């Protein structure tokens, strides 16, 4: 079904510089040109310097996240992953993904590598959608650090009450969509 992984170096390079890379580069160049035109060269400089700061911030997290993802794939047996959060895991799988998502701390630079790792290990699209929705919407760390102190317990709990069921719904809808995800990282290594 999927092409076998190719060991050659050139295939890795062509993966790095594949379609998505060029698309993003084009978007960046167009947006940069528009920014220059509308806001002047200072804003362009400011944006690029800000990106550089952000990059320094991202690299240790992304590298850690990617190594984490690589290790999760070899340590967690695929049959366990697909039993708990695979396509046949039912509502229980969606509930598990929701709970794990809400408990996952940190930003997208670690969460997305984990999503890739779980996809490669056999988690289905419904569980991954539930996981990401819960992580972004119900994040427990965010609740403790931001919502309780800034909004107060009444408002924070009201919000939780209004949205806690949403990740499971999104996951259930995702399972019924006739679309298969095809992540770029999927080089046929998915077990």
């Amino acid at each position: 079904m999927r092409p076998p992984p190719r060991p050659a170096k050139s295939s890795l390079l062509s993966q790095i510089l594949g379609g998505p890379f060029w698309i993003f580069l084009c978007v960046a160049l167009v947006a940069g040109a528009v920014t220059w035109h509308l806001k002047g060269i200072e804003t362009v400089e400011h944006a690029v310097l800000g990106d550089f700061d952000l990059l320094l911030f991202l690299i240790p997290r992304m590298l850690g996240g990617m190594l984490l993802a690589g290790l999760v794939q070899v340590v967690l047996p695929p049959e366990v992953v697909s039993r708990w959060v695979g396509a046949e895991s039912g509502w229980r799988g969606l509930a598990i993904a929701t709970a794990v998502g809400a408990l996952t701390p940190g930003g997208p630079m670690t969460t997305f590598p984990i999503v890739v790792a779980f996809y490669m290990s056999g988690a289905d699209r419904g569980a991954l959608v539930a996981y990401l929705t819960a992580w972004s919407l119900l994040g427990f760390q965010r609740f403790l650090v931001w919502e309780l102190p800034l909004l107060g317990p009444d408002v924070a709990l009201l919000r939780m009450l209004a949205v806690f069921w949403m990740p499971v719904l999104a996951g259930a809808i995702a399972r019924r969509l006739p679309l298969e995800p095809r992540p770029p990282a999927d080089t046929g290594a998915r077990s």
Partner: protein
Amino acid sequence: MKFQIFDISVVLIWSLVAILAVIAWRRGEGKLRLGLTRGLQMFGINGPRVMVALLAAGFLSYLLPKDLVAQWLGAEAGWQGILIGCLVGPFFPGGPLVIFPVLVALLKAGAGLPAVFAFLTSASVWGVHRILMFEIPMMGPRFAAIRLISSCLLPPLAGLMTVILLQLLGSFP
């Protein structure tokens, strides 16, 4: 914006890496090496993509009239507030560090809870920055489409649920 390069989340991530590395090493069969190789390969493939995506997202964030939008949301109540909250949420970049000060400002400006929760939900599940910078580069456009279709109703539903809960609770502040 200034970023704290080393904080508790870096320590947490790398501690998890260390724990998993020890587990993989104890399993033997070259598992540690395989896991690390896969991780580095992923970093090599995704790093350049995220870098150019970052550049694109950085420029786009300068092109959005954020302050204007916040004023607008604060001024509208009822269904219009919910609708505007849903529509502007995705364009607020960044994590809680950016969103929560905006949220507090909105509440102070008199925006209703339904509109504010719709806004927070749409910033969380439809956040354009995250989709551009991480989701599409790493999981591909098809996965992003699946997730967006599945969650397209969540922000208005969050506003609606808040209206219902407020009615049920009656005397809520």
